[in-house]
């Protein structure tokens, strides 16, 4: 019995020692802070749903780091219903329509359950109508058919300067949307667009269009002169046969 009691006392002493095993400051340690890299989408038109889900709601996706399960996206300070990925690198939130009913630039950030917040990223709600985009200059404003101009790694570069180019503005060339430079995306005055000009019969009457999202009826059209163009042998055959 004495032996048993000694064992008990040893156990009790161990337990008392263990009381100080994990310190208070260790328990108060915060989680790694979340960080946002990107939003998708970054803009919408006031009152216009985006990234529409099967049940008709708009969803905003955020990419970043340490977006642990249970984190919440805040939109202009309001808590949103949020779902996080298993790898903690993305989260998606449902945005109620009332939050993007009015134009403006709203901050979006992610908050962990203990209140730790990420860096904010802007989400732009564009007005349904507004100042029309204006194109002042185009460089180059002519090229040889079939020849890539101002060569860049992903095609030719076209520089457009103007005014009122809102985020989400797109450049349509011959009805096709051109890839544009991300850096110029939000510049109000000058935007650089990149695209390879395609040769041939498409160009003679085509317009060069810049249009702001949600502002389709205020497009500005510049004529693009395409000089010294020639048809490839395939194109010549197509012209002759009518494409048949």
């Amino acid at each position, binding site marked *: 019995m004495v032996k048993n009691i000694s064992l008990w006392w040893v156990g009790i002493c161990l337990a008392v020692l263990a009381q100080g095993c994990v310190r208070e400051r260790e328990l108060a340690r915060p989680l790694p802070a979340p960080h946002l890299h990107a939003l998708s989408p970054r803009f919408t038109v006031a009152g216009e749903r985006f990234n529409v889900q099967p049940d008709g709601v708009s969803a905003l996706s955020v990419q970043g780091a340490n977006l642990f399960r249970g984190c919440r996206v805040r939109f202009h300070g309001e808590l949103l*219903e949020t779902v996080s990925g298993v790898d903690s690198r993305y989260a998606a939130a449902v945005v109620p329509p009332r939050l993007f009913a009015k134009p403006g630039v709203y901050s979006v950030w992610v908050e962990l359950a203990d209140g730790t917040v990420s860096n904010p990223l802007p989400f732009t709600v564009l007005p349904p109508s507004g100042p029309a985009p204006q194109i002042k200059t185009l460089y180059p404003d002519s090229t040889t058919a079939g020849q890539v101009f101002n060569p860049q790694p992903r095609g030719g570069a076209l520089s457009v300067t103007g005014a009122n180019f809102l985020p989400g503005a797109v450049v349509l060339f011959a009805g096709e949307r051109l890839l544009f430079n991300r850096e110029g995306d939000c510049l109000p005055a000058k935007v650089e667009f990149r695209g390879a000009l395609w040769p041939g019969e498409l160009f003679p009457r085509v317009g060069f269009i810049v249009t702001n999202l949600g502002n389709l009826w205020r497009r500005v059209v510049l004529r693009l002169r395409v000089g010294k163009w020639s048809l490839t042998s395939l194109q010549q055959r197509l012209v002759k046969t009518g494409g048949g």
Partner: protein
Amino acid sequence: MELLHAAWWSENLKGLWTLLRSPQVDGWLLIRWLTQNLLLAGWIFMADMAAGLALLRGWAPRMPLCLKWAAGLALGSGFQAVALFWIGFAGGLRHWVPGMATGLAGAVGLWMLALPAVTRKSGPPTPAWRRGKGSWGWRSLALAVLAFLVLFPAALHVCDLSTPVVEFDSLLYHMRSAQQYLKTHSLAYHGELRYNAHPQLNVLLLIRSWTVLGDDAAAKFQNLEFTLMLLFVVFYAAQELRWTSGWILAASFVFSSPLLWWVSKVEYADLALAGYAAVGIAALFHWLRNGESVVVPAGLALGFAASVKLMGHVVAACIGLAFLLALAVRRTSVSRMARSAAALAGLASAVCCGWWLRSWMHTGSPVYPFFVKGHPDVAQLFHNDAAYGLGRDAIAFLLLPWRMMVGPPQAFADAFEFGPAGLVLVAALAIGMVRIRKTPPPEILFLALIIAIYVPVWFLTSQVMRYLLWLLAPGSILLIWVVKTVHGERWLAPTAAMLLTSYALYAAVLTSTMRRYEIPPAVTTAGRRQALAAALPYYPVLRELNRLAAPGDKTYLLFCEEYKYYLDTPAWGDWFGDLSYRWLSQNVSVADDIPQKLRKLGFRWMVVERERARRASSWFGKGLNGSLLLKPYADLPGAHTVYSDRTLAVFRLW
């Protein structure tokens, strides 16, 4: 069955591994924290054991070792809980009290145990421990395999014990009551809590673990003590039946139940009930088998079982009745039977009387809401209970063992199935009836009678599957007796044990809190909050509400009664009790008038869970279905929307 699917295993084990490797988890800190909690919990259990053994020295000195250990734990913890009850009843339940009381009880127990042995009434314990003979030739190999099989679920179980409080009943009843008692330092009845007047002995033990371990999530470590009681009873049964290795079969039988794993990982009352009932049954079994009166520990253990919950009263009554019938079979004199019955009932009542008194003082009934004339909740309770199960006819009764294994669990009001134990027991009893041609001894009859009395009562009243959990212990004793008697030690027992152990391993993973909620074990405050936010989508919303609301602001929770646990403000709203949904539905012609009605009563906030409100809309007549309350993202006239999504909304009413 998922048990046999390799994909299920690989997917879940990979998921658990991913959780443990998450940046949220600091492995070294987790190991240290779990070790600390295990040591502290061990300290509590040792104190209980010391106090319990000291009490047993005077009351039942000749008990076999394992039964003594089981009874020591039961008596020590039970007395602690009763002491905390009376301290709380007097309004002195402060944070330091449970730890101090446990330390004091342990120290006194050790001192009494260290006294010279002259106070002993007789010699050493019954040598059943040494009498047992192992019959498996390959016992060592089986033990090695079992040790391997035990390590993984044990580690997983300890991690699960460190997860935050997330289960519905824990949030609504047990931990909510514990929270309220700690906040008010007393056990005063509070209409805000559902059936807080009920006996809740285990809640006081949860409070003890909470305060000593310093964390509400760690309160679950108390469950290890109840599990130890069950294990000691299993060991005792194997020794008593002179089949030492029989404990492996009995333990695998007990732990094959997913329900048991589940309640042992969360803050439910049923494990405490199973633990105390097992000790009471084992003590009475010992009495019937050896003729040694252990009336005091048996009566107290039954009293502790009855003090866990109202269903515990029924359990204790069934055990007592079965014991009296077994005594009658044993041809005990009527006067002795009456004395035994009176002693058992008196001891059990002495333990329970505090709860009855408390309930009577605050509600006018010792077992509120029963025996209150015309109380609407009683009818509602019976109505709810009648909905559980898959029928009450003879076929449903015969199919019960099968349905205990295949479910569906939701039909029996639980998250998991009972497991294969029912089928195994029925099979064992069938084999026993064919192969054993003699009348079973009274102690075996006693076990069979317990099951025979309780199961029909359960079947005809409330078919909640976890209310059968406490039958695992008597079932396991019955099983090893049958197997031993039919000489099935060589092939039948190892085969059954292997199958049941596989199922137990499956059940351990299936019911894992980490797996179910996809949350890592939480150590830091930030980690726990993040785990809560992941497990309970409403948690961040409630934190937002806590941030906005003033301390005294009254909040009404519409169809989300369990949210109270994580709300800092006083909150009402429940199916039962004060200011219930029934009360709210009265005198409201249109559901959208609800904010106005609440505002008049001084409520400043309202939270509604839309999906549950939709399901319960019939309570509000036609009004609720078309109400803006249920419409996602809709604003409510006369209220400011603080938060609104597809499932949940928070409105400011002022």
